[in-house]
């Protein structure tokens, strides 16, 4: 009795809503059978996005997007609210997962040249989504409204301020005024919670619509270069012979990989936890060492390593050029070979980009350009004693800040040259001239040390390497 009643309700609903007409064909559309595990990254990105939506909605119920209260509400979420710590962790690792997966998805599509005819717009909508996801990552990072969040806003405004003519206007638009204040955080909150997610929903919809329109691309085959004149007919014919329905033949792999992704996000949230909050968001406090989240470290390193003359061009030009290059790629090359074996330059570009990313990320982690403010005085074992002029010099090398930038036997920063062997490399006169006059990115100390102090420092430096 009941099953028949259910069936009647379903028949009515299906007839009026059109589930079988619209949704079932999408689910069971025919896809190539050879893709296997290569094609799981797009759906996993979408899964990560859904994790962000759910955890984000929950967090927004307690988070107060006000300059003054946000920090308190974050503390409450992290320390008191049931599941608050886990949710914050999931949102943080979900963001990392989303950025990672969207890039992996892009690299896979690029290596397989799936952006070629007729899927140019699939790629172009994907590139827009990539940049929106990066925008989400940046705005989300500073909703973690601690000292790091405040200074991230200042850095963003300063970067925008470099734009010719309209720079100050963009900077003040970003800050919501002339200074960091009550209106600043709510602007980023609106971007992160209303504007950019709206763009993502619309963009994902379009991206999927195009996927259904042009079908899932096959694995690249060196014997099947893309010819726009014949591609569609050949693709349809091959699919007719060897294709399988997406549901369930291909979908289960997406489900398995997405499960792994969610498990990793949840596991990290529970066992590692969200990033700790730093100091309160006080723009008058200098006790901050602003760093972006890990996926932007490479860019942070670029900003530190650039010659100042090029800086403004790179800060403003690189994102625009990067976007245009990616966005226009299928307009420049939309036919011919798809197989990586026939496209050595594409493989080289990916390897070079991955290598640059790794090197710059490690470099940013070490921050060799940043003074080591936490450096301790040199131990007696390095100095070679704790009495006499040499030991006095060693104490001055610490007190005068030399060690912030110069490293001696593993102690100190890396901004300037290492001084472990400096006694062998420079004469006493050279040392005195260099310390007094500075040069080559070193400040001149003539005005800030006495003659006795200078003599003691040089006494100590002369013993290095001897």
């Amino acid at each position, binding site marked *: 009795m009941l099953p028949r009643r259910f069936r009647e309700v379903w028949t009515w609903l299906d007839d009026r809503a059109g589930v079988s007409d619209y949704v079932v064909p999408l689910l069971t559309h025919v896809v190539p059978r050879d893709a296997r595990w290569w094609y799981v990254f797009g759906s996993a990105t979408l899964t990560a996005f859904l994790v962000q939506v759910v955890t984000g909605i929950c967090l927004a119920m307690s988070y107060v997007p006000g300059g003054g209260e946000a920090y308190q509400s974050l503390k409450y979420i992290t320390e008191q609210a049931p599941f608050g710590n886990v949710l914050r962790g999931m949102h943080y690792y979900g963001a990392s997962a989303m950025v990672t997966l969207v890039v992996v998805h892009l690299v896979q599509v690029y290596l397989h040249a799936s952006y070629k005819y007729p899927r140019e717009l699939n790629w172009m909508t994907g590139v827009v989504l990539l940049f929106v996801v990066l925008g989400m990552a940046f705005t989300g990072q500073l909703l973690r409204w601690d000292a790091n969040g405040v200074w991230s806003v*200042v850095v963003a405004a300063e970067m925008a301020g470099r734009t010719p003519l309209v720079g100050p206007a963009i900077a003040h638009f970003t800050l919501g005024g002339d200074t960091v204040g009550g209106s600043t955080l709510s602007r980023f909150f609106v971007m992160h919670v209303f504007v950019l997610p709206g763009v993502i929903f619309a963009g994902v919809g379009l991206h999927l619509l195009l996927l259904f329109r042009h079908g899932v691309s096959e694995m690249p085959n060196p014997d099947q270069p893309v010819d726009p004149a014949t591609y569609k007919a050949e693709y349809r014919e091959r699919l007719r012979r060897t294709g399988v329905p997406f549901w369930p033949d291909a979908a289960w792999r997406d489900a398995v990989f997405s499960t792994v992704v969610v498990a990793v996000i949840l596991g990290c949230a529970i066992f590692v936890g969200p990033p700790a909050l730093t100091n309160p968001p006080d723009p008058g406090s200098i006790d901050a060492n602003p760093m972006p989240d890990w996926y932007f470290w490479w860019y942070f390193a670029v900003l530190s390593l650039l010659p100042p003359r090029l800086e403004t061009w790179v800060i403003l030009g690189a994102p625009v050029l990067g976007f245009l290059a990616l966005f226009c790629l299928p307009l420049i090359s939309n036919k011919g070979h798809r197989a990586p074996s026939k496209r050595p330059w594409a493989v080289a570009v990916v390897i070079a980009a991955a290598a640059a990313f790794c090197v710059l990320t490690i470099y940013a982690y070490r921050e060799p350009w940043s003074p080591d403010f936490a450096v301790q005085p040199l131990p007696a074992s390095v100095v070679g004693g704790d009495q006499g002029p040499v030991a006095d010099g060693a104490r001055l090398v610490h007190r005068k800040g030399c060690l912030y930038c110069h490293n001696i036997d593993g102690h100190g920063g890396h901004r300037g040259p290492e001084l472990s062997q400096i006694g062998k490399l420079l004469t006493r006169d050279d040392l005195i001239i260099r310390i007094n006059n500075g040069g080559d990115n070193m400040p001149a100390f003539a005005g800030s040390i006495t003659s006795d102090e200078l003599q003691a420092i040089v006494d100590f430096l002369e013993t290095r390497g001897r």
Partner: protein
Amino acid sequence: MSGHNQLLPTAPPEQERRRSFLSWLTRGLAGLIGLAVTVPGLGFVLAPVFQKPPRRWRPVGKRDAFPLGATVLVEFEDPSSEPWAGVTATTGAWLRRVSDDQFIAFSINCRHLGCPVRWIAAAELFMCPCHGGVYYKDGTVAAGPPPEPLKRYAVRVRGNEVEIEAGPVPLTTTN
């Protein structure tokens, strides 16, 4: 779209004119609705861009509390603070008493990308933790990427009260 149009019989000319008018009317009304929503919205959102930069004298302490020659961090209220800004309404400056009545104040914002510089007293240098900018004690660039000297705030002494003229966050622009 064309599929729907084909269902319509060919219309007499006056009906075509009517349809043409109606389609323009609809577009025009849609545009008006758009303007009605976006004009006040844009005005609201862009207002901070056209604000006159606010300047306010803010007290930072008693004159005698600042030892001669020392450079100390002072915190004070932003010139444009909203009532709900809380802790974000504060900003800071490095204040130095150079003589009995004379003070100089440097903005804590590095001129490279705005990070907070620290005063290293023994070395008499300002150092930035972000990208390695270094300034001499007079605020001029000693090393690193900053293109300009540290910005100074105006300071005055009224009675025994030291006041700083708080202003916008200093921006390094290309203009």
